[in-house]
C-alpha cells in the first residue's frame, strides 16, 4: 500500500515530498475517524448495554430508533458548552492535558494493522511502539490532575500514576509471550502467523498462552482505567478524579481517549492472542484462497479481515462494559496488590512456562496443523516476509528470511529455531507429533 500510493501520486505528477505527505495523511485521517467514530459507537453501546443490564432502555429517541445518534447529540452539546478553566488552574497545562491523552491513544493506532498491509505505519517494533505510546496516556491524566488546581483531581492523578505504571509491568510480560513465540515484534507478522483455524490462534498455542490471555485482559482493563480499576475517576470517592474540573470539549477528549484506548487494548489482545484478522474458520485464506490471490479478491479478503478484527475487538469492549456495570470498585491498595501479587507472578510464570514449552515441545501444538490446510506458522511467516519484503522489509525480518535464517538475532528466537528451520510454504508440511486439540 505504501509503495503503490506514493508511486501513484508521483506518477500523477505530484512532487515527491507532497506525495509522501499525502500518503501520511491518509492513514491519519482514517485512524482519527476510527477512534472518533469508535468512541461515538461505544459510548452509545455503553449506554444501551448498561441500560439493558439495569432493566432500563437507555437512549431511545435521538436518530429515530435505538437512540443511535445520542452520542452525536451529546457531542454537539459538549461543543456548545462553556469551556471553563478554573482560576486555580495552571491554564496552559490544563488546556494541553486532554490533547496529550487523546494524542497518545490515537497515535498508538498508527502501528496497528487491520489486515495484511493495512496499517498506518508498518513497523517491525509495532508491539513495543503501541505499548510505549499507550503508556504516554498517563501523562495527560497526571497533567490534568496536577494542573486542575483541585485536590480531588490531584488524588486521581496520583492514583492513575501509581496504577498505570505498575500495570505496565505485567502487561509488558503478557505481551512478550506472543512476541517470542512468533519471534517478531511486527504485529502484521504475528497476525499472519495465526492464519488458519481457531486452533491456530496463539491463545490456544499452549496452556500458558491461554492463561496469560486472561492476565492480559485484566491488566489491559486496569491500564485503561476501566471498572473495577477506575480509581482515577472513582466518582464515589474522588468526585470525578482527574477530570473533575473539565467541561465541554476538553472533557470529551478525555472520554474519547478512554474509549480509544479500550478499543486499542482489545484490538491488541485480538492481534496477539485471538487470531487477528483471521476468523475461526479460514474461509478467505483457505476456503476461497482469496487472501493470497491479490487484486480485488485479495482486497476483499483484507476487508473481511479488517471487519473481523474490529468485530472481535468490539466484543472485547463489550466485555469491558459488562464488567463495569457488574462489579464494585477495588480500593487502591487492593489494585496494587492485584498487580504485584497476582498479575506479575502469574505473567512471569506463564512467561517461563511458555518459554519452556517453546524450547522443548515446539511441535506439539495445535499450530502445527497437518498438510491439507498448508498451515505452518513459520512458513506463513516467511512467505509473508518474502511477499511484503523488498525495499521496505525490516532489518530483523530480513535476517529471518530463508536465505539468512541463521544466525537468528535474539536469544529468545534461538530457542525456537527448530520450529523455524522447516521448508518454506508450498513444500512439505512439518511433521507434527500427536495433535492436542
Amino acid at each position, binding site marked *: 500500500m505504501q509503495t503503490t500510493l506514493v508511486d501513484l501520486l508521483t506518477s500523477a505528477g505530484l512532487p515527491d515530498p507532497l506525495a509522501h505527505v499525502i500518503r501520511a495523511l491518509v492513514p491519519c485521517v482514517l485512524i482519527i475517524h476510527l477512534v472518533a467514530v469508535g468512541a461515538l459507537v461505544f459510548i452509545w453501546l455503553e449506554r444501551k448495554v448498561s441500560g439493558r443490564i*439495569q432493566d432500563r432502555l437507555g437512549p431511545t429517541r435521538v436518530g429515530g430508533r435505538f437512540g443511535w445518534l445520542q452520542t452525536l447529540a451529546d457531542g454537539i452539546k459538549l461543543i456548545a458548552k462553556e469551556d471553563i478553566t478554573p482560576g486555580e488552574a495552571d491554564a496552559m497545562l490544563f488546556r494541553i492535558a486532554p490533547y496529550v491523552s487523546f494524542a497518545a491513544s490515537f497515535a498508538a493506532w498508527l502501528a496497528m494493522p487491520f489486515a495484511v498491509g493495512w496499517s498506518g505505519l508498518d513497523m517491525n517494533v509495532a508491539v513495543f511502539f503501541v505499548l510505549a505510546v499507550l503508556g504516554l496516556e498517563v501523562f495527560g491524566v497526571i497533567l490534568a490532575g496536577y494542573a486542575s488546581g483541585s485536590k480531588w483531581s490531584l488524588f486521581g492523578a496520583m492514583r492513575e500514576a501509581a496504577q498505570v505504571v505498575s500495570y505496565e509491568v505485567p502487561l509488558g510480560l503478557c505481551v512478550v509471550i506472543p512476541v517470542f513465540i512468533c519471534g517478531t515484534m511486527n504485529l502484521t507478522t504475528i497476525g499472519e502467523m495465526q492464519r488458519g483455524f481457531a486452533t491456530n490462534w496463539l491463545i490456544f498455542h499452549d496452556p500458558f498462552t491461554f492463561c496469560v490471555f486472561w492476565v492480559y485482559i485484566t491488566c489491559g482493563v486496569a491500564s485503561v482505567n476501566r471498572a473495577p480499576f477506575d480509581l482515577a475517576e472513582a466518582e464515589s470517592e474522588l*468526585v470525578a478524579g482527574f477530570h473533575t474540573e473539565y467541561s465541554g470539549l476538553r472533557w470529551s477528549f478525555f472520554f474519547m481517549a478512554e474509549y480509544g484506548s479500550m478499543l486499542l487494548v482489545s484490538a491488541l489482545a485480538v492481534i496477539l492472542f485471538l487470531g487477528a484478522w483471521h476468523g475461526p474458520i479460514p474461509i478467505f485464506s483457505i476456503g476461497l484462497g482469496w487472501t493470497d490471490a491479490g487484486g480485488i479478491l485479495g482486497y476483499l479478503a483484507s476487508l473481511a479481515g479488517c471487519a473481523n478484527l474490529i468485530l472481535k475487538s468490539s466484543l472485547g469492549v463489550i466485555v469491558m462494559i459488562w464488567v463495569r456495570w457488574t462489579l*464494585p470498585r477495588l480500593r487502591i491498595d487492593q489494585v496494587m496488590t492485584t498487580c504485584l501479587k497476582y498479575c506479575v507472578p502469574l505473567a512471569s510464570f506463564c512467561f517461563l512456562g511458555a518459554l519452556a514449552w517453546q524450547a522443548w515441545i515446539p511441535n506439539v501444538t495445535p499450530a502445527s496443523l497437518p498438510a491439507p490446510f498448508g498451515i505452518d506458522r513459520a512458513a506463513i511467516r516467511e512467505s509473508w516476509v518474502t511477499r511484503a519484503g523488498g525495499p521496505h522489509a525490516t532489518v530483523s525480518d530480513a535476517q529471518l528470511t530463508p536465505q539468512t535464517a541463521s544466525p537468528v538475532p535474539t536469544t529468545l528466537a534461538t530457542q525456537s529455531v527448530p520450529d523455524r528451520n522447516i521448508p518454506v510454504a508450498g513444500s512439505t508440511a512439518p511433521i507434527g507429533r500427536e495433535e492436542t486439540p
Partner: protein
Amino acid sequence: MAASVADQRVIEFDVRTDEMLVNMGPQHPSTHGVLRLVLRTDGEVVSEVEPHLGYLHRCAEKIGENLTPRQWVPYTDRMDYLAGMNMNLGWALCVEKLLDHNLSDKAKHLRVIIAEMGRIASHLVGMGAYGLDLGTFSPFLYAFREREKILDLFEEACGARLTYSYLTPGGATADLPEGWLDKCSAFLDQFEPVIQEYHALLTTNSIFIKRTANIGVMDAEMVTDYGCTGPVLRGSGVDHDLRRDGEEIYTEMYENYAFEVVVQKDGHYPRDHTYPPVPKEAVLGDCWHRFYVRMLEVVQAIDLVRQAIERYRSADGDWGIPIKLTQKLPKGEVYLETEAPRGQMGFYLVSDGNSIPRRVRARSSCFCNLSVTSDVCRGALLADVPAIVGSLDVVMGEIDR
C-alpha cells in the same frame, strides 16, 4: 488493611509529606445528601474526619411548636425522607401516648403492614446507595425497581410517593383500598426470591467483601457508648430492637408476631441457612455486617408484612380514625422512641394543655450513628470513608431536621 496513623508517621519519617485538608461534601456524590466531611489526609490515608452538619436544617422542631400535632405530620415525612411512613408512625404514637389513645387491632395491623413496607423500601435504598458508594451502579437501579413497586402501593393507599403523611395521630388518614392487600402479597411473593440476586451481586461478591469486611470495625461497647441504634447497633452484635424491647404502646403493635431480632448470636444470624454465610474475612461490627443486617431485616420485614396481612384481614374494628385537627392535648410531657429503619427515632412533646404543643423535639438515630465517623475513619484509607459512612446509612434530612 490500612495502617494506623501512628504507623504511617514512622514509615514516612524520612520522606516528609504534607497533610492535605480536603472537603468531602456538601456537594459530593457519595455523602448521601448534604453531609460535609472535612478530611485530613496524608496521601491516601485519612488521619482525621470531621463531619459538619446543618446544610439541611429546616427548623422542623420549631415549626412543631406552632402547629397542632396532626398539622405537623408532614414535617415528620421530611425528616427521614426515605422512610416517611416510619417517621409518621413515631410521631403518631408519641401523640397517642400523650392522649392515652387506644387503637383497634385492625389499625395496629395496618400500621405494621405500612411500617414494615416502609422498612423494606428504606433498606432497599440503603443497599443500592451502598453499592454506589463502592462503585457499582447496577444494584442501585435494581433496588429502585423494587422500591418503585412499594411506592406504587403507598401511592394507592395515600396518594403520595415520598412524603406520605399517611399514619397520623389516631390511626391513618384512610383505610387501605380494596384489593390492596392482594397486590401487596403479590409483590412480596415476587420480591422475596429477588433478594438472592442482591446477595449474588453484592453480599457474596468477592470485591464487595474485600471492600467491606474488616473495614470500619466497631465493637459493641463503642456503638453503645456513642448511642448508635438500629442496624448499626445490631451489626455490632448488640441484641436490641425496640419492636421487642421498646415501650408498651409500641411493642403491643408487634404482639403475637413471630419475628427474631436480626443479630449475630454464636456466629449465626437468624435464618442464615437460606442466605449466604458470613465470609471468614468479616469481623463482627464491620461494614459487611451492618450491610448484612439490613439485608436480613428486609426478609424479616417481609415475614412481618405477611403475618400482618393475615391478621388485618380477620381483625375487627376501624382502621383508626385520626384525631381532630385541633384536638386539645392534655397537659404533660411525653417521649417515645420507635424502631425506624435507620435506628431509634424518638419524639419528645411537651404540652401545656393547648392544642398546639409547647415543645417538640426529635431524637435522630442517624445523628448518633454518624457521630462515630471521626472515630472509625481515623487511619482508614480515603476509599474507606465512603464505605464506612455508607454503611451507617445516614439520611441528612433526619440529622438536620
